[in-house]
């Protein structure tokens, strides 16, 4: 079963995304900030990380940097509600495998993860 590390500070969004992924056969670990995400990565490297960009006390880019240091082989996908072009550019320059703009459809989410894992 594919493991997904979900890093999202908004609890409602986190629950919704986690439920959707679990309904499609993914094993999801939910974290709500950069610190707990780092601990989770150290505990067990996921198959794919789904990272919200805008979070207080450490954004998704910080988590991605830590992830790359701990396990450079883990792919990651960014999620964001901001349509800032600079974010997209930075995300891709960091090596993100996907970039989802909220609100995204269930299909877009599943496609992004399946394409990344494949």
């Amino acid at each position: 079963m594919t493991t997904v590390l979900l890093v999202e500070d908004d609890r409602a969004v986190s629950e919704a995304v986690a439920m959707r992924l679990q309904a499609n056969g993914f094993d999801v670990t939910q974290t709500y900030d950069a610190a707990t995400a780092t601990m989770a990565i150290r505990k067990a490297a996921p198959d794919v990380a789904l990272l919200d960009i805008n979070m207080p006390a450490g954004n998704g880019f910080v988590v991605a940097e830590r992830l790359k240091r701990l396990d450079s082989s883990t792919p990651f996908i960014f999620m964001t509600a901001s349509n800032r072009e600079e974010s997209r550019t930075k995300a891709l320059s960091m090596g993100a495998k996907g970039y989802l703009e909220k609100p995204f459809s269930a299909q877009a989410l599943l496609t992004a993860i399946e394409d990344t894992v494949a």
Partner: protein
Amino acid sequence: MQYKKSAVPNHQNPPGSPEASELRVLFVDANPDRAQLTLRAMTQYLPGFAGEVVAGIRSASLLASAARYDCVVAHQRLLDDERAVLQSLRSADDYSALPVVVIADRTDCTDAVHAMRAGAADFLAERTLTPERLLGAIRSAVHRSSLDAALAQQNIDLQHENLSLSRKQELLADSQRQLAHTLLTPLTAVSEYISMVLDGVGGNFSNDQGRFLAVARGRCSELQTAIESMVSLSSAEPCGEQAVKSVVLEPLINDVLDQFSLQAALKGIHFGCAIDRQVQCVVADEYELQGILIELLTQMIRACSASGNILVLAEPDVEQAGQVKLILRAQLGPYGNSPADLDPQGDETPQPNARHLPGGLLLETRVDTDLEFAFSLPAALATA
């Protein structure tokens, strides 16, 4: 020096230019006696006029840097190498520096062009020099120098304003990002929960429940569209940098003159262009400005062609901050006659003709005599 009383052209006595008693002028001449004569004539006819005479460039340079002068009047005989001399008295690219008016012992338009290109503020023939004419040239040069400084300051102010606008734009962009995040994040949760229920993740539901949720999902889509539109609008630039489309006058005029050169040469008409500094003008269409120059020169050639050889000189005169007047002056007859020596043709009264062009450009054509055509256009900046 002949003391002919003649009217000083209007453009040499612009409003706001200093009075004779307010000026301090340095006269530089290899023949100090000649310069003293000039100075004596100036003080005799113009009460309050103050000046000093030096014989050499080195002395002039030392005096100019040590004392406050408003203008230097240099005799052309001193200027074997005008460029080096004029640059020793003023920085070539510093428009707030001392203006230099050159007096020549003969009217040679080639020398005039060289002197203007070397940085002279004006060029006068000694043979027809009068105190009034010299004073007019000095006042005009000093006035232009102060306007150059004002325009340079305007440049600086505009740059600061642009920087301020950029900072404000960045603040606005940051606010827009925060707004997008605040609105779209909860909407994501709402949309996703509705979708999961409709997809059966939470179990079965009735037809009515399905219909209600479908309506809710539709309204979420509308809300998303509205938020994204609002965010897009708020990210639009409220005002951008003030961009000036530079049009440099000298090459533009030279291009136009080149178009006339062949036909003009057959009529014995020769062109020259002496613009001693770059001027940036705000124009909506550079080609339209070129068309206007062609029209002006066509009028001039028609008016003057019957008189034989003419030489056209174009010189800009910054009247006031924000305006540049371009004067096209023709010299009729053999080289050496100044327009003031010849009577105006007919009984022409000035016929101002204003035309508004796109981009806020105002073109005013004024024919004072058959010999001078002037038009004004706005200058946003003058380059340093």
